[in-house]
């Protein structure tokens, strides 16, 4: 696959250099990006992190009302323990730090180790893991599910809660409730390639799609011939609504997200169908998001996330926020 880059080993660092050069609200310190305002004294810090290759996730969501700091690793590889420690410290305004990131083994180990180390410096931390990908494990193994695009709702909701002055316990509970109320499923049309790798992360026929594929090419539910946008949207929404959620609600927000190469045109074709399906199901859509929010470089495909909103989540979703890729 063609990539406009210099050396593969410089891919992440040069990307980060450009990101902060274009957005002076972001400050880069090695493999950590923090908000220029962070740490904000008296506010609970929200820190995330993960591998590169998913922009705007993770570093693109650093800003007021969202993340305070973010640790970033190589493409599709988690941040180092050192970066996690540095990010937690950068986000600590004295009232503790929520570590809010996707449920991946390496990220979990590194953020856990980092949390133990900063505790020795007197920083209190809690953890909430994004587990929204319904294709990555069955409902009875929901704790094994991986975190994908739906985590940005948790960023927004937890960020607004922290901005409102809530304490660490409250922010953590609100973030966990947001994760619990959100479900995502993806569909892939073509693969991506890690810079420097000899071949793409997976192979798929020119006329095939894979339902349920993860954002690193994790295997999905089925692979078959390409179908119409409406057929694909119907199945995705049906699966999302069928997945058990304790806190279901009539009011929902929806994210139709490109995995990278799929253009806005196709996203809107799918959104049109998703909106109709949810209306038919008796639901009202609040603040829909359609665009590139969590990608896998040049992978073609999209994901649909649905988050059920209680009154508080709806209010927090509407609160002001500003980052390079999302402004309310």
């Amino acid at each position, binding site marked *: 696959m063609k990539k406009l880059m210099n050396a593969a080993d410089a891919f992440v660092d040069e990307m980060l250099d450009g990101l902060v050069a274009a957005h002076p609200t972001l400050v880069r310190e090695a493999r950590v990006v923090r908000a220029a305002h962070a740490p904000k004294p008296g506010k609970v810090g929200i820190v995330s992190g993960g591998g590169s290759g998913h922009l705007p996730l993770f570093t693109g969501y650093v800003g007021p009302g969202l993340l305070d700091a973010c640790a970033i690793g*190589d493409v599709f590889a988690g941040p180092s323990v050192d970066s996690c420690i540095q990010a937690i410290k950068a986000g600590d305004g004295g009232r503790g730090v929520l570590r809010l990131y996707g449920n991946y*083994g*390496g990220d979990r180990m590194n953020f856990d180790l980092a949390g133990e180390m900063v505790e020795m410096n007197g920083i209190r931390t809690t953890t909430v893991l994004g587990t929204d990908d319904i294709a990555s494990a069955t409902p009875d193994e929901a704790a094994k599910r991986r975190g994908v695009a739906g985590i940005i709702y948790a960023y927004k909701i937890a960020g607004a809660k922290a901005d409102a002055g809530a304490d660490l316990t409250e922010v953590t509970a609100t973030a966990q409730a947001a994760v619990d109320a959100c479900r995502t499923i993806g569909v892939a049309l073509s693969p991506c390639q890690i810079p420097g*790798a000899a071949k793409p*992360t997976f192979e798929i026929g020119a006329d095939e799609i894979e339902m349920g594929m993860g954002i690193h*090419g994790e*295997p999905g539910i089925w692979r078959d011939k390409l179908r119409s946008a409406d057929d694909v949207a119907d199945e995705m929404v049906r699966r999302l609504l069928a997945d058990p959620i304790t806190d279901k609600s009539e009011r929902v927000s929806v994210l139709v997200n490109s995995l990278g190469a799929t253009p806005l045109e196709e996203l809107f074709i799918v959104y049109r169908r998703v909106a109709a399906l949810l209306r038919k199901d008796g639901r009202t859509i609040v603040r829909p998001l359609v665009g590139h929010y969590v990608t896998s470089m040049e992978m073609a495909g999209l994901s649909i996330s649905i988050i059920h909103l209680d009154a508080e989540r709806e209010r927090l979703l509407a609160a002001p926020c500003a980052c390079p890729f999302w402004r309310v």
Partner: protein
Amino acid sequence: MAITADTLRHAATRARDAAALAQDDLNAADGRLGDGDTGVMLRRLFEAVATAIPAHENDLGIVFQACARACASGTGSSLGTLVTVAMMTLAKATRGRSEIGWDELGGLLASIRDQMMARGGAKLGDKTVVDMIDAVASALAHCATRDEATVAAQKAAQDALDAFRARPNKLGRARMFGERTIGLDDPGMLAFSRLLAAVAA
């Protein structure tokens, strides 16, 4: 002869060279279940270890501590973190000592196994590197000399690789491939067996 800091320096060089040689094979093995970067990770990790190991330090704890630090800043992959955990376990266990006996290796590996299980969440039987470390730890329990240890460890590693090939991966990304992992070597086990062979040679 016991294990000293010189033994570790020698082993670190061999591990670095072995990781570089194994890179393509490990990438290929991982490419069937993951994103195909296990080989690159392992090479970078052991390059960092070989560079970070202090040249004139006899305290094994301090040597392992330097290795742990190199691993912690070098990579964020789960394999890298597990190696960090292993180095930290060794650093704590050998602090203040300038040599350890070959008969102590089995016990040290058993503590590494326990720490890795606590950190990474793997259980025995999940088909991860932890299963191989468990097998090698048991085999080393009865070895008093270097010669005995190298033969027993390599045999146990190979036996574990052979025994688990026919079983499915039950953890992490490989878990999601389910039955399709039957017949494949776990990349972490393969990496450990390659490093072991190089260090034992």
